[in-house]
């Protein structure tokens, strides 16, 4: 993987690279219509649960039971407002922001330092350590889930936000190191040599030369960390007990296991969970898509 891939294959539509010989304009036009029709069908499949999520959250408790249509008869924002205020989704939202924010910052700091060493400095044991971190990609979440919980119980950090953030940071190690090491390696080595000549220390070189250059890769890593962390359920659900520390996914679970299951409230909660991710994704998607394909294809 190269950073050029991440940097230059920027935004914009994929180019049409395959153009057969011209064989009748009519046929081509019909073909295009068919192609768009098929894509539209899958587009609806893609959006299907979101459409119903929006629909349900705009219905009141009466309509959710008696009106099975997608379009509400009397659309209301009350369900959303109620969920946000009365059901404390504001508090859950704040907790999610804290956990996701701290995890993301931690990942960027810890793994940009490590990847700089792996990519730029030649030190003993570098290759072995690098490989070791990458092998961790194979470890299933369920294998470490129980030991992490038991360890945190001993350390007394089980059930705190801190107890979530540490394993979350560690969990993204392989992917972050993979992406950032490649990015640091693609920076011309002469930059460092020249700076060393001028008497700059390693830290200066790292902070004021390398980090600004690989910024797009850092954003990619931040997104690839933040999005799964925002949605994380497994470790959070087995470690957090206090309701005031709940993140959004746990708040949502609370709505579902309540005495009366009201789908309009549940879907309003779901909408509150997905909207920030969708906004972040749309705003930064060029980093996301290109970084992802770069990382996956190696």
């Amino acid at each position, binding site marked *: 993987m190269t950073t050029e891939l991440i940097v230059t294959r920027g935004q914009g*539509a*994929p180019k*049409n*690279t*395959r153009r*057969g*010989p011209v064989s009748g304009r009519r046929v081509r036009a019909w073909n295009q219509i068919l*192609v*768009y029709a098929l*894509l539209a069908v*899958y587009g609806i499949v*893609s*959006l299907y649960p979101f459409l*119903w*999520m929006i629909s349900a959250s705009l219905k009141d408790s009466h309509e959710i039971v008696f009106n*099975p249509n997608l379009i509400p008869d009397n659309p209301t924002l009350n369900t959303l407002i109620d969920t946000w205020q009365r059901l404390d989704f504001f508090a859950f939202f704040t907790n999610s922001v804290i956990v996701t924010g701290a995890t993301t910052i931690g990942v960027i700091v*810890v793994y940009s*330092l490590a990847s700089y060493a*792996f990519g730029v*400095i*030649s*030190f003993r044991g570098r290759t072995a350590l690098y*490989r070791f971190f*990458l*092998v961790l990609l*194979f470890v*299933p*979440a*369920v*294998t*470490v*889930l*129980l*030991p992490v919980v*038991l*360890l945190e119980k001993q350390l007394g950090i089980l059930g705190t936000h801190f107890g979530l953030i*540490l*394993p979350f940071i*560690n*969990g993204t*190690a392989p*992917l972050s190191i*993979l992406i950032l090491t490649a990015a640091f390696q693609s920076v011309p080595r002469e930059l460092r040599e020249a700076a060393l000549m001028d008497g700059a220390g390693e830290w200066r070189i790292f902070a004021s030369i390398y980090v600004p250059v690989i910024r797009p890769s850092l954003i990619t890593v931040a997104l690839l960390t933040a*999005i*799964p*962390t925002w*949605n*994380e359920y*497994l470790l959070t659900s087995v470690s957090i007990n206090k309701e005031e520390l709940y993140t959004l996914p746990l708040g949502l*679970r609370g709505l579902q296991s309540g005495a009366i299951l009201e789908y309009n409230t549940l879907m309003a909660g*779901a909408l509150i*969970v*997905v909207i920030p991710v969708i906004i972040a*994704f749309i705003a930064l998607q060029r980093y*996301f*898509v290109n970084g992802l*394909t770069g990382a*996956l*294809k*190696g």
Partner: protein
Amino acid sequence: MPSITLPTSTAAEAAPPSQRGRGRRSAKRTSRNNLTGYVFIAPAVILFLLMGLYTLVYGFLLSFATWNGFTPTWKWVGLDNYIDLLGGSAMVSPVILNAAVNTLWVIVGLPVITVVISFPLAILLNSINRFAGAIRTIFFLPYVTAGIAVFYAWTYVLQPQGAINSLLTMLGLGTLSQPQGWLGNPDTALPTLIVVMVWSAVPVAMILYLSALQSVDTSLIEAASIDGAGWWRTNFSITWPLVAPITAVVVLLNIREALQGFQTMLLMTNGGPAEHTNVLGLEAYRLAFLSNLAPTLGLSSALSWLLFAAAIILAFVNLRLFRSKT
């Protein structure tokens, strides 16, 4: 853990950092480099020793013991947990066998259906100019939102009075609708969950195919169409073999998800109805966290290590298979 899906294939054999620019250097410079290197990687290594290595070793040891999580000591049982899981116990084995069969369905269904949908989708998306970016964004939403919120939304549309049943009735296919709900009927529950998992898996697969298609040598395809090969022939005889390495990655990612992922089941059916959607990952989770003081933590660890081993073996076989083809 935040489950970042990740292609193990390429990563594992990714070249180690190259030893570029290693000229003659003074001993002083080398030792300074060593020291600086260690300082830079220290936070990552310390975190890993604590949260990674310790927990892995701990879990591995626990797989040779029985424990309920509260008694002060473990009871060492050697390989008993593994033997029980692999057919040696009248209590445990049938549950595991049932979960294994269900997992096998997911292992077959998830990669195959994902490839069958995402490859043509990528070809279609690659052949248009207008709106390609917007369409790609829409196709990608299931990946970024994957989690409890969309699983609940699917549960909502799949319930007995849900949108899927009304849609079928509206289309005159009322006989296909499921009065017990798609997740309530034992025959449809697992296939339905596989479809939901495919829905979440298609975006990454499609984007991988798409980026491969953009780097396919167009002269090959032009030559083929000059020779009179139609759209179908071109895509299946020429493009499909060219993207085989991507198919390998997609299959691998989804086999891993099928083996290890159980969030969809946990949140949508919790293994029901009547264990028809219980899978091995979910069973490992239950043995660890829903054991009600039964001494099954070691059993859970053993099961999760078997899953770990299976994932590595499958990754290896898969790579071999596709490597030899290309």
